[in-house]
């Protein structure tokens, strides 16, 4: 017997629950995918929060477009017009941020904060004007702030999906150029890449994702689509193609799962749920990703300290110096010293072997460091890992000879 809710979930997830909800879920997944790919380069360019200014700055444009529409007597809430307004004022906000941080002594964070809140304030004032004018269809304007997938019509969902796919495709086509831009804009400029134009393309793609995300996720949270997936992906890899791919997958999964959950359960606003799902992916990556995750890093650091402490204690014992406290306890746990000897401890045969190995490693590494400082292996953890596992055998033998006590 399968839970009916579960069955329903399965149907939506596999796009079998009616054409409309399938389209909405697919469109949202495409949106997440585009956010992840474009956001990767924003993150690397350290522009993550610029898109926050951009999304908040769309509000006055939406309000003005609404007023224009009303003045022209257009049918209520013409979406293309509203989104055109959003793009226009979003771009003005973006340019203001860039101008403030380029031409004044204000830093980018202040510029972003000032622009996003002042533009938003202007939008709020304009909304109060619209409210006073008592125009029809103004209730729909509110959905731009917190988002609403339920409001999405089929055609809109398809358009969103196509635009998002286009944005992701553009990133794929310009991958090489964007990589140079994100890594070293100065170098790119010297090499003759049109850095300014590439930056414009990148910000244009961010604008596109933001504006098509407005309806679903809302202007307050849409920035999350651009930030969270790449930030989560960052914990899994140091390579850009993999990073972009993982961010795209996390973004798409967040959109897909989020839209499904919100369609399935009552009172779960899609935008917020998508962000929460993405946040869940982030948390998992932050904690458990093997490359840069917290647990892995803590284990590495702890092991490193422990290794050094253990080696020090072992060599101390070998040289006849007493070892006490936690170090002694640890050696006893490892079976390196005999339990019956209370203080100082005497090495067991295993302890003898480990101590000798530690002393040898240290002696040889020191020799290597003294004789070949320029040849330190760049990627290996020299000095930490056993020397035999890092350096070739004939090198180790050479060091053995040279460091032999004369």
């Amino acid at each position, binding site marked *: 017997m399968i839970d009916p809710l579960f069955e329903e979930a399965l149907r939506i997830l596999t796009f079998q629950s009616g054409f409309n909800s399938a389209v909405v879920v697919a469109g949202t997944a495409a949106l997440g995918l585009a956010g992840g790919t474009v956001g990767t380069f924003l993150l690397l360019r350290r522009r993550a929060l610029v898109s926050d200014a951009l999304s908040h700055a769309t509000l006055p444009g939406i309000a003005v477009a609404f007023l224009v529409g009303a003045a022209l007597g257009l049918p209520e809430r013409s979406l293309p017009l509203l989104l055109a307004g959003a793009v226009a004022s979003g771009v003005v906000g973006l340019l203001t941020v860039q101008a403030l941080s380029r031409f004044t002594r204000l830093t980018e964070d202040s510029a972003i904060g000032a622009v996003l809140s002042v533009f938003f304030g202007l939008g709020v004032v304009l909304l109060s004007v619209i409210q006073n004018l008592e125009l029809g269809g103004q209730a729909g304007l509110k959905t731009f702030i917190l988002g609403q997938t339920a409001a999405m019509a089929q055609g809109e969902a398809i358009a969103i999906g196509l635009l998002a796919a286009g944005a992701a495709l553009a990133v794929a086509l310009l991958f090489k150029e964007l990589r140079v831009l994100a890594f070293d804009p100065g170098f790119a400029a010297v090499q003759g890449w049109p850095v300014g134009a590439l930056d414009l393309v990148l910000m244009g793609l961010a604008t596109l994702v933001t504006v098509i995300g407005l309806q679903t996720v809302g202007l307050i949270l849409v920035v999350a689509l651009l930030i969270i997936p790449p930030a989560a992906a960052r914990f899994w890899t140091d390579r850009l193609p993999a990073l972009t791919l993982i961010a795209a997958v996390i973004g798409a999964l967040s959109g897909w799962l989020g839209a499904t959950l919100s369609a399935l359960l009552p009172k779960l606003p899609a935008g917020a749920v998508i962000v929460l799902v993405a946040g869940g992916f982030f948390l998992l990556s932050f904690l458990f990703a093997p490359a840069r995750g917290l647990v892995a890093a803590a284990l590495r650091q702890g092991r490193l300290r422990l290794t050094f402490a253990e080696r020090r204690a072992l060599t101390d014992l070998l040289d006849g110096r007493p070892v006490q406290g936690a170090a002694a306890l640890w050696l006893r746990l490892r079976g390196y010293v005999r339990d019956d000897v209370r203080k100082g401890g005497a090495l067991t045969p295993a302890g003898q072997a480990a101590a000798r190995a530690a002393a040898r490693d240290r002696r040889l590494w020191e020799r290597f460091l*003294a*004789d*070949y*400082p320029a*040849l330190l292996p760049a990627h290996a953890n020299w000095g*930490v890992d056993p020397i035999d596992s890092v350096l*070739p055998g004939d*090198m180790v033998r050479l060091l053995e000879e040279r460091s032999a006590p004369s």
Partner: protein
Amino acid sequence: MQYLWRTPGSRTAPEEASPIGTPPLEIRGLTVAYHRRPVLWNVDYAAPSGGLIAVVGPNGAGKSTLIKACLGLVPSVSGTVEVFGRPIAKQRRLIGYVPQRESVDWDFPVSALDVVAMGRYGKIGWFRPVTRAHKEAALHALERVGMADFARRQIGQLSGGQQQRVFLARALAQEAQLYFMDEPFAGVDAATERAVLQVLRDLDAAGRTVICVHHDLQTVSDYFDHALLLNTRVVAQGPVARVMTPDLLSRTYGGRPMPAPAALGALGAEAS
């Protein structure tokens, strides 16, 4: 009330607690690793009391890291650092620090005098304002580096060399016993170089110990009494006459030409 918040129990003035004869700085078995790759390896060093000490080594040798580890600004994997016989946290008042130049916001709304007065904050302590006496001490320090005329200038409106002199004046105003300076001579003009040198000599004459990262091998012997040759590990240490030898220097900067097995080339070894 001093900023000794970490050790509320310690009531004695640190000066009294440091018996004559303990080295100003004693490092034992210090290893520091970024991620898992060591950048300082098993460093042992005891600085002689009084005098100017140069820390010399190639780029990336870990000189800045050594200073930061001594100051407790980066964590170590193993080893201890003591200042006048006690852990650094209890001896903050005895220590002055001149960081590498690029580390602050030059646009910050402070004047040169404000920056120098910051050196006195350790003496002033919580809640008390910067009094006239402290401002005068700060101005005096500025005078000693020849920057008194620029006291009211915003810090970003000074040239690189002038900024460096302001930071030195701040160290002077600190009236510390042991100074750490990270490349104070880097990228300065001749006038500033003379001013920096004069400050070092004044400090020396006053019996202070100065540990100074220095990149210019030509001037080490002229400017300093002792040297610490560092390349991840301590290559040599002692009076400049004894350690600034071609042999020891070439060992510090790249190593003696030792026959290396060919296989090492395939290891991805880095050349410096």
